[in-house]
């Protein structure tokens, strides 16, 4: 059974040098309260595994960890929305392993699902082939990638029940259900914690057996304000 902790307590589980998967897509569905708290700690040399980098609107979610230089390596598909990350990369201050988005996702899924790796047509005929084994199936070549796992996964969901079942909303699920299967320790930040039984079994996106720690995030109202401000600032909401 998972335990409910404060964000501060939960974030203490993250140690310098660890690999940390972070859910969300440019901020949407990201565990922003945990990331805000992590950015206030001395934890560094992290390997961040996030499908994309930070929201282009600026100093938000992952961006704080980058500007604090808490990250030594990223495994991602996209860095273009965070100029500082690209600059640090070009300057050799941070390492980036680029995986195509579908490949990134399947590698983690394979890690969580006990598969030996993935065979993808994506990247054939490109520099993605470098250092990768090619496997031919029915006459067609595919790239073999090993599974990807991490020490910790920071997941964001809408609600959790006390058994750890997670309910997602809208497009905020993105990488969260997959990373929740592939880390030694899974911490879920949610808008609301409810009693066991309150989440319909058909709405469970991540079964409770995957979740170790539950924390209460900013909640619906505050998140609405945060994103409204973020999107207004960047001219996307008028």
């Amino acid at each position, binding site marked *: 059974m998972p335990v409910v902790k404060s964000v501060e307590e939960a974030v203490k589980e993250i140690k310098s040098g660890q690999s940390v998967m972070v859910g969300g897509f440019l901020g*949407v569905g990201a565990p922003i309260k945990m990331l805000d708290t992590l950015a206030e700690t001395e934890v560094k040399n992290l390997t961040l595994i996030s499908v994309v980098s930070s929201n282009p609107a600026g100093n938000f979610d992952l961006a704080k960890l980058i500007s604090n230089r808490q990250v030594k390596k990223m495994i991602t598909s*996209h860095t273009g929305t965070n100029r500082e990350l*690209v600059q640090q990369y070009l300057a050799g201050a941070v390492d980036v392993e680029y995986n195509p988005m*579908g*490949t990134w996702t399947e590698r983690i899924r394979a890690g969580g699902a006990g598969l030996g790796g993935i065979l993808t047509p*994506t*990247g*054939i005929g*490109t520099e993605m082939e470098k250092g990768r084994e090619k496997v031919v199936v029915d006459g067609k070549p595919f790239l073999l990638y090993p599974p990807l796992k991490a020490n910790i996964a920071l997941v964001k969901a809408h609600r959790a029940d006390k058994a750890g079942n997670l309910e997602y909303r809208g497009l905020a699920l993105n990488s969260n259900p997959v990373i929740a299967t592939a880390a030694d320790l899974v911490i879920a930040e949610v808008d609301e914690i409810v009693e066991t039984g309150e989440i319909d079994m058909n709405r469970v996106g991540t079964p409770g057996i995957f979740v170790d720690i539950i924390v209460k995030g900013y909640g619906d109202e505050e998140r609405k304000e945060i*994103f409204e401000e973020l999107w207004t600032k960047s001219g996307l909401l008028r």
Partner: protein
Amino acid sequence: MADKDLIAKRIAKEFSDGMILNLGFGIPNAAANYIPKGVKVILQTENGGLVFGPTPKKGEADPDLGNSAGSPITMLPGASAFDLATSFGIIRGGHVDATVLGALEVDETGSVANWKVPGKMMPGMGGAMDLLVGAKRVIIAMNHTDKDGNSKVLKKCTLPLSASGVVDLIITDKAVMEVTDKGLLLKEVAPGVTVDEVKRITEATLIIPETVGTM
């Protein structure tokens, strides 16, 4: 008409009723504004949704509804939300009818480069490599030349490829070209642009048919 609008409008002519589309940012996305009346397409956002609509108004944005650029969107009746594993299963599995993407370079073998300029620009491929390999039809939309007037339509791409031999159609501000086994077939030129001018600004070898249409 601005070049951007010309390209966007021409892209939209490739859409037919019921098509499942994934449109890249910028000009490809703008093509959605020119979809002919009576044609209904299904738009995918690769971060995990199908059937999305316009940007919400201030005060109406849902923090759990963003598109693949991290911008607020709305979902329309018939929408579905799913995780990235499903989303890229849809893409790589050939369930997207067409994708329209921008590019840094494209060549006459249908190869395309749009994810990095070594040592200079490192956006990363995001979902583009999967889309290029998975979508049933690949349309590249871009300016014909770079800021210095150099052709972006080449015999062979010089930048790191995003995918090899996958492009079906190239739409630029100057011309529309189809990728064939024999090379690039010039289909249309932009209004006021001559075939000779297109040949002059295109490094790739063009196949010129008897009649060339106007975009």
